[in-house]
C-alpha cells in the first residue's frame, strides 16, 4: 500500500462553514453531535418524509460553524429514504439541506472494515474531511489496535481517535480540526478493476454527463450504483432518454460479465478487498478465543425462551417505574397549573378574558404538560436501553411473533410505549425502517390502553360492575379492568392483520439487523435527547391543544346564560346552590350543549344520552377530560369528586320511566367505545407531524370512530339481552 502525501487544508475553518457528520448507524455520531452542539440543536423532520433532520451550531476558534448530523447509512446506494438524503446532501443536490463544506467521517474502530466501506464511497466524492475513529475502548477490549497514522497515510486524510463517551470529545475534535485540518481525499483509491473502471467511465461519458444534472464528482458513484442495480426506477433525477440509458447499462453489464465480473457485487467485493488489504499495515488483531461479555449476554438475552421472558420483565419494570416516578412530577405540574390558573383568575377582573385564559388556555395547556414527566421518563428509558445495545436484541427476539401478526420486530418497543401514552410510542416508531411497517404500527398504536383511559375505566367499573370475588384474589372488577387492556391488544393485533392486507404490501423486509456490542450509554447524551423529545412534544402538540381548548371553551361558554327570577326561585326550592345550577344550565343551552342534544339520537343506540355526548365531544381534547366533563355536568362538589360522581351515575333516573338511566350495559358500551375510539387530539397532531400529511390522522380518526361506534352498539345490545335481559 503506497503512502500518499496529505494535502491538508486549514483555511476552511477560518470562515463560517457547514460541517456534516457522516457515518454508519451506531457509531457514536449522535453523541459527537450532542457534544459539539450541546443544547444549541434543532431536530425536525425533513420536509415531505419522516427522516429526522438534526442541526446545530458549534464554535471553533471563535468562528461559529453549522453542524448537520446526516442520517446514519451503511452505503451511498440510496435505497432507503435516509441513505438517499445523506447521498443527495453530500453531492449538494438536496434542496432542504445545505451542501457541506467539510466532513467529519465517523468510523467505528471496533468494526473498521464495515465502516471503511461507506468511508471509501464518501471519499470518492472528494469533499475535505477529517476521519474520526470512535469506539476505541471497545476495539481495545477486543484486542484490535489501529495505527491512526498508518490509516491516514493509506487514505490520504487526517485521522484522529477519540472516545466519544468522554466529556472531552468535542474538545479533541475541535483541536484536531485546528491543528491537523482536513484534506480532500482522492477518488478511486480502492483500485477498481480495469473492466469496472472502463464501464464507469463509459456510462459517465456516454450518458450521465450529457443527460443528468449530477456534478462531475458524483457521477462515478451514480454509475456504480446503476451498474449494480441495473434500474433507473428509484432514481431521483428525471433522466431524459431513459431507454437509451437502460440499453447502455445492459450492454455494460453484459460486458462486465463476459470479463468475469459480477456486476451486482463487483463494487462491494472490490472495495472490501482493498479495505482488507490496506488494513494489514494499520490494524492488528489479537486472536482471542474466550467469550466476550457481548457473547455471554447474547447467549441469555437472545435465547429463544429466556429472551422474550426477559424482554417482558424489562418492560414491566420500565412501565412500573414510569408510572411511579412520574406521579410526583405530574402532581406538581397539576398543582402549578391550578395555582397559576387561580392566580390569573384572581388577578384579572372577572369576565370573558379571565374565563378564556383560566378555563380555556391554562386548563388546556395544563392538560398536555401534565404528561411531560411520563414522556421524558419513557424516553430516558428508551434512549438508555438503545444506548446499551439491548433494543436491537429486543426487536430480534420478538420478530417472529410480530411478523405473524403483520408487524415487524421493530414495532415491539413503540407498541409497549403506547401503554403509557400513544404519543411517545408514535414518536418511537422512527426506528422502523420499512415505511409500511411503520405506518401500520402508527395506525394501530392508539389501541394500546394508554394512561388517559384509566380515569374513565375506573369510574365506570366502580359504578356499575359488581365488586364480587371470582376466583382466589381475583375480583370481577379487576377482571373487567384487565379485560379492557387485553381487548386493546387484541384490537391492535387484529387491525394490523387487516391493514397488512389492505396497504400496498411490496416485499416484506426480512429482519436483518446489526447487533451493536453492549456498552454503558453516555448519560448526558441520553438526557439531552430525552429533553429534546419533551420540548418537541410541548411545542408541537401544545400549539394545537391551545387552539382546540379555546374552541371548546367558546362552544361551552356561549351563548351566555342569564338566570331568570323564576329559575332562581326553583333552585332555592330544590335546595340547590345557584352557582352549580347556573353552570349546568349554562352548559345545557351552550353551543356544546345544543350540539350534545342534537347528536343524542345518533348515540342513543349505544346507550348514551346527551350528557355523555358532551363528554365525548370534550374528551376529544384528551380522554381523561370525560370524567371532568361529567363532573361539571352533574355539578358535583369537588371534594367528593369520584364517590359523588359514581353515586350520581348510579342514581340518575329516566324522568319518563323512572328506571335507572345508566346500567351495566351503558358502562360496558362506554368503556368499549373509549377503548377503541380516537379520542385524543394530541395523538392526531403527532400522527400528522410524523407522517407529514393530514391523510393518515383523518383515516385513523375515521376508522377508529366507526369501529368504536359499532363495537359499542353491539356491546350495548348484547349486554341488554344477555346480562340484563
Amino acid at each position, binding site marked *: 500500500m503506497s503512502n500518499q502525501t496529505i494535502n491538508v487544508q486549514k483555511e476552511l475553518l477560518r470562515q463560517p462553514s457547514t460541517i456534516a457528520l457522516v457515518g454508519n448507524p451506531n457509531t457514536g455520531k449522535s453523541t459527537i453531535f450532542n457534544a459539539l452542539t450541546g443544547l444549541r440543536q434543532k431536530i425536525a423532520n425533513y420536509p415531505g418524509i419522516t427522516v429526522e433532520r438534526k442541526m446545530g451550531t458549534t464554535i471553533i476558534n471563535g468562528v461559529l460553524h453549522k453542524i448537520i448530523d446526516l442520517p446514519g447509512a451503511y452505503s451511498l446506494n440510496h435505497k432507503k429514504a435516509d441513505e438517499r438524503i445523506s447521498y443527495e446532501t453530500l453531492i449538494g443536490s438536496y434542496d432542504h439541506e445545505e451542501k457541506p463544506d467539510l466532513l467529519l467521517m465517523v468510523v467505528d474502530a471496533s468494526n473498521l472494515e464495515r465502516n471503511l466501506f461507506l468511508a471509501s464511497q464518501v471519499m470518492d466524492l472528494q469533499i475535505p474531511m477529517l476521519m474520526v475513529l470512535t469506539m476505541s475502548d471497545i476495539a481495545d477490549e477486543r484486542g484490535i489496535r489501529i495505527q491512526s497514522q498508518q490509516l491516514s497515510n493509506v487514505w490520504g486524510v487526517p485521522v484522529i481517535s477519540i472516545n466519544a463517551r468522554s466529556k472531552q470529545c468535542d474538545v479533541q475534535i475541535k483541536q484536531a480540526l485546528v491543528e491537523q485540518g482536513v484534506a480532500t481525499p482522492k477518488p478511486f483509491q480502492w483500485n477498481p478493476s480495469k473492466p469496472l473502471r472502463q464501464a464507469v467511465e463509459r456510462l459517465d461519458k456516454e450518458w450521465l454527463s450529457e443527460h443528468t444534472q449530477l456534478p462531475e464528482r458524483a457521477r462515478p458513484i451514480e454509475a456504480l450504483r446503476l451498474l449494480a442495480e441495473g434500474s433507473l426506477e428509484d432514481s431521483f433525477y428525471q433522466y431524459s432518454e431513459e431507454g437509451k440509458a437502460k440499453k447502455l447499462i445492459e450492454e455494460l453489464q453484459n460486458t462486465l460479465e463476459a470479463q468475469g465480473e459480477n456486476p451486482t457485487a463487483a463494487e*462491494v467485493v472490490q472495495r*472490501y478487498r482493498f479495505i482488507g488489504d490496506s488494513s494489514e499495515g494499520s490494524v492488528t488483531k489479537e486472536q482471542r478465543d474466550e467469550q466476550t461479555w457481548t457473547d455471554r449476554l447474547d*447467549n441469555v438475552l*437472545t435465547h*429463544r425462551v429466556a429472551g422474550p421472558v426477559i424482554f417482558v420483565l424489562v418492560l414491566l419494570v420500565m412501565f412500573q417505574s414510569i408510572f411511579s416516578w412520574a406521579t410526583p412530577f405530574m402532581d406538581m405540574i397539576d398543582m402549578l397549573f391550578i395555582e397559576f390558573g387561580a392566580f390569573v383568575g384572581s388577578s384579572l377582573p372577572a369576565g370573558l378574558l379571565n374565563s378564556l385564559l383560566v378555563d380555556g388556555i391554562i386548563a388546556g395547556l395544563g392538560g398536555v404538560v401534565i404528561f411531560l414527566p411520563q414522556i421524558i421518563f419513557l424516553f430516558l428509558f428508551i434512549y438508555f436501553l438503545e444506548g446499551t445495545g439491548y433494543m436491537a436484541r429486543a426487536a430480534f427476539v420478538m420478530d*417472529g411473533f410480530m411478523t405473524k401478526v403483520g408487524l415487524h420486530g421493530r414495532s415491539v418497543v413503540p407498541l409497549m410505549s403506547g401503554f403509557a401514552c400513544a404519543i411517545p410510542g408514535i414518536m418511537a416508531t422512527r426506528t422502523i425502517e420499512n415505511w409500511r411497517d411503520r405506518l401500520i404500527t402508527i395506525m394501530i398504536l392508539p389501541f394500546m390502553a394508554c394512561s388517559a383511559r384509566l380515569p374513565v375505566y375506573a369510574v365506570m367499573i366502580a359504578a356499575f360492575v359488581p365488586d364480587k370475588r371470582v376466583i382466589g384474589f381475583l375480583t370481577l372488577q379487576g377482571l373487567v379492568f384487565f379485560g379492557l387492556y387485553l381487548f386493546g391488544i387484541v384490537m391492535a393485533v387484529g387491525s394490523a392483520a387487516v391493514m397488512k392486507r389492505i396497504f400496498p404490501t411490496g416485499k416484506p423486509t*426480512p429482519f*436483518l439487523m446489526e447487533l451493536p456490542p453492549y456498552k454503558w450509554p453516555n448519560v448526558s447524551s441520553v438526557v439531552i435527547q430525552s429533553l429534546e423529545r419533551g420540548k418537541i412534544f410541548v411545542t408541537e402538540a401544545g400549539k394545537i391543544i391551545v387552539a382546540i381548548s379555546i374552541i371548546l371553551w367558546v362552544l361551552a361558554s356561549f351563548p351566555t346564560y342569564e338566570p331568570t327570577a323564576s329559575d332562581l326561585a326553583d333552585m332555592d326550592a330544590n335546595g340547590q346552590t345557584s352557582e352549580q345550577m347556573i353552570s349546568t344550565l349554562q352548559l345545557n343551552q351552550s353551543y356544546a350543549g345544543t350540539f350534545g342534544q342534537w347528536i343524542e339520537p345518533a348515540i342513543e343506540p349505544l346507550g348514551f344520552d346527551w350528557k355523555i355526548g358532551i363528554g365525548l365531544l370534550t374528551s376529544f381534547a384528551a380522554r381523561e377530560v370525560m370524567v371532568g366533563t361529567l363532573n361539571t355536568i352533574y355539578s358535583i362538589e369537588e371534594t367528593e369528586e369520584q364517590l359523588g360522581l359514581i353515586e350520581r351515575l348510579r342514581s340518575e333516573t329516566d324522568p319518563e320511566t323512572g328506571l335507572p338511566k345508566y346500567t351495566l350495559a351503558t358502562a360496558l358500551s362506554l368503556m368499549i367505545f373509549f377503548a377503541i375510539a380516537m379520542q385524543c387530539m394530541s395523538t392526531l397532531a403527532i400522527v400528522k407531524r410524523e407522517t407529514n400529511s393530514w391523510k393518515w390522522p383523518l383515516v385513523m380518526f375515521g376508522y377508529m370512530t366507526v369501529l368504536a361506534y359499532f363495537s359499542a352498539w353491539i356491546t350495548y345490545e348484547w349486554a341488554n339481552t344477555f346480562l340484563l335481559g
Partner: protein
Amino acid sequence: MIVPLTTTKIGEQVRVSCLNCTSEDTCRLQELGCVEGATGTVVSNQKNIILQVGECRLAITHPLAMNILVEPVSKKK
C-alpha cells in the same frame, strides 16, 4: 460442501459462498460486510441466526438465513 446457514451449529466457522436472496436483500447483506467469500462464526442458531462476520454481529431471520449458502470451514469446540 455448501449448506444453508440455517443448518449450521453454534461456534461453527463458515465461509459465505452464495447469497441466493433478492437483489435488495443481497445488497443489504453485502453492505453489512456479509459478502461472498467472507468468513464468519455462528454465534447463535435458534431458528433465527446470529452470525459474526469480522467485527460485525448480524441478526438474521430464518427465511433470509435459508437463502444464505455457506461452506463450513472448520469446527470449533
